């Protein structure tokens, strides 16, 4: 396995090893480019994952201090856990559900499609669906997405069967077990899904795609990729010409190291990535790196989310089998007649008993709560995920008071729902309940959003440098050899789960970086 010198200024340094960073690292390594991935978390292999919600949360979750503000309920119920994401090699591809959907065409140009909406900061992406299609195809093939490349869909579990029956009674047309990056048959050296459940706790069988056991070992096998776990990057450095020259990071022992670099790519998820750029402020860049637009940290997106759980007379056992292999897509279209722009997906979801207690209605107590809990084995559940509108005031900033153990200010996340988000959620709650009532639900529970799993938008792509942080290739407008490679480069969030788009952008970005290096532009 490769081991690069701290003073090797020819390497590409990638901060983070998830969907963006892990994919970019492998793609560059395959092209013969030397890569060092610095991952803040430990390397935990899939046999060590735990089928226990709280124990797994302790093993995998990013639980470093963060603060919150705003009117979102997460701020009240979980003030220091704005996001449920992973701190480990593989990043949030360790706990993601596997849903792999392409954006619709209009979702790359929402300013044109939705017009001017008060309070929202809409912007068209500088890329189109047509430009993305070849990369979506590559990503689907790489990840083994069901219902693409001739791969059959996953079998439906009990939770899906309830969703499907209700959806059909309601007249919904596009209902199936999803496009999932989970093997329905053996592929790419990994076996097929064993219906274990616990997809969010790390897939112990490896049937679900994660950079941890696909991209990263493949990249390492080339001899061009070195992954350093337990390495928390605290600052990106630059020279007098304004080019980045490397990063300072705390290694596994807590000692500070300086890794030189030819290119730096930031892929620390949409809370840490802007935090790192802001914490890298210097006399030349007093507002943080790549921030001449003032947009770093702004337009934080978390999707319009919510869940509907429903209890039936007879057993469902929703927790058995693949957590999210089930989708209704009929509401994903943009149909402003419903009272909001954009659309949403309805996807199966289950929680175990411990997380159901924590998330069904945080803070609730008494008999209405315990009656709901006692319905647990007779419950079905769905997650609602839709497009939330970018707002400049929804943003990640540096907390003015609280610092981490390395003395760096922690991230503070502010979020308020836009009225469009609220209207969409109300519609989705109503439709979700209707799906279950159509097949005999005796009670339904409109469950509030969990800490964010889909974090996007805080280093947005824009055609013009004044509107955003990076260009159409994720290259920062201000600094040629500084890239953003995760969901923070999203200009807007679309209705669907973001991972497939993050992976597709990373594949595309690898071509860009390799080309620019070859031409000595960077």
């Amino acid at each position, binding site marked *: 396995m490769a081991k690069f010198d701290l003073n090797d200024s020819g390497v590409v340094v990638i901060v983070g090893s998830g969907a963006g960073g892990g994919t970019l690292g492998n793609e560059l390594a395959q092209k013969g480019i030397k890569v060092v991935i610095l991952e803040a978390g430990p390397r935990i292999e899939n046999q060590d994952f735990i089928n226990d919600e709280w124990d797994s949360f302790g093993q995998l979750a990013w639980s470093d201090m963060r603060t919150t503000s705003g009117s979102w309920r997460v701020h009240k119920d979980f003030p220091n856990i704005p996001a449920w994401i992973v701190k480990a090699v593989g990043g949030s591809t360790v706990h993601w559900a596997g849903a792999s959907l392409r954006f619709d065409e209009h979702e790359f140009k929402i300013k044109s499609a939705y017009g001017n909406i008060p309070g929202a900061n809409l912007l068209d992406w500088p890329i189109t669906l047509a430009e993305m299609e070849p990369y979506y195809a590559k990503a689907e093939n790489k990840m083994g997405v069901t219902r693409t490349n001739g791969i059959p869909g996953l079998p439906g579990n009990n939770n899906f069967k309830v969703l499907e029956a209700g959806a059909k009674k309601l007249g919904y047309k596009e209902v199936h077990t999803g496009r999932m990056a989970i093997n329905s048959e053996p592929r790419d050296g990994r076996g097929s899904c*064993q*219906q274990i459940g616990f997809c969010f706790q790390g897939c112990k*069988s490896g049937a679900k795609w994660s950079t941890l056991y696909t991209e990263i070992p493949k990249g390492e096998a080339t001899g061009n990729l070195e992954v350093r776990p337990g390495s928390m990057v605290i600052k990106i450095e630059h020279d007098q010409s304004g080019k980045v020259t490397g990063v300072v990071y705390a290694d596994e022992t807590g000692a500070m190291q300086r890794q030189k670099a030819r290119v730096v790519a930031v892929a620390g998820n949409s809370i840490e990535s802007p935090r790192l750029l802001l914490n890298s402020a210097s006399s030349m860049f007093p507002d943080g790196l790549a921030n001449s637009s003032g947009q770093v940290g702004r337009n934080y997106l978390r999707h319009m989310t919510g869940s509907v759980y429903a209890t039936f007379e*007879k057993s*469902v056992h929703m927790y*058995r089998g693949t957590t999210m292999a089930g989708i209704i897509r009929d509401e994903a279209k943009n149909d402003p007649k419903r009272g909001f722009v954009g659309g949403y997906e309805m996807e199966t979801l289950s929680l175990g008993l*411990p997380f159901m207690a924590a998330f069904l209605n945080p803070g609730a107590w008494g008999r209405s709560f315990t009656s709901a809990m006692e319905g647990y084995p007779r419950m079905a559940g769905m997650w609602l995920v839709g497009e939330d509108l970018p707002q400049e005031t929804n943003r990640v900033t540096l907390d003015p008071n609280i610092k981490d153990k390395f003395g760096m200010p922690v991230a503070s996340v502010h979020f308020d729902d836009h009225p469009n988000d609220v209207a969409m959620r109300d519609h989705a709650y109503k439709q979700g309940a209707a799906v279950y009532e159509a097949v005999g639900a005796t009670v339904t529970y409109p469950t509030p959003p969990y800490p964010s799993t889909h974090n996007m938008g805080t280093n947005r792509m824009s055609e013009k440098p004044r509107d955003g942080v990076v260009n159409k290739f994720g290259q920062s407008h201000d600094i040629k050899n500084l890239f953003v490679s995760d969901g923070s480069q999203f200009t807007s969030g679309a209705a669907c789960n973001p991972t497939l788009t993050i992976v597709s952008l990373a594949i595309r970005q690898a071509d860009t970086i390799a080309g620019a290096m070859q031409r000595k532009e960077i």
Partner: protein
Amino acid sequence: MREIDRRSKYDRRVFLKGAAVTAPAVAIATSTGLGITDAWADEAGTLTPATMKTLLKMARDIYPHDFLGDSYYISAVKPWDDKAAKDPAVKSLINDGVARLDQEANERHKMPYAQVAWENDRVALLQRIEESAFFQKIRGDLIASLYNNKEVWPRFGYEGSSAEHGGYIKRGFADIDWLPKA
């Protein structure tokens, strides 16, 4: 459909012991939910037995599950004695909180909270202190100490860890049999 045996492993073990007439009476009483002696509360070293019993009553009133015997709630609240021993701030939070709750009860019912007979009346008292740090601490802790206790999972029809059993691919992931034909 494969339904779940709602008896917890704990109950089965004690039941078998009881059948062999080797288990102490208290264990049998616990497992059958027929009532329980106060010995557990007397074991507390820092908090008083009366305080422990008040915490038990609170736990039952906050998350009432009539199919769960006291033993599960006792396991959930008992660690407060240790925490109070280690941290004087916790000790006074609990002692002050219980004192205020009893004061509310005495003003309205002329008796301490734990002796108020009807759950509805006790819940009304809890609602008066709902915003207090004491109540929030006890309630928040119960979410894990009650529902994350593996012994209670089968009682709620939850099967827990599945990978070591080969997942559900051959254990009923798709065995629902009552839905209308899609």
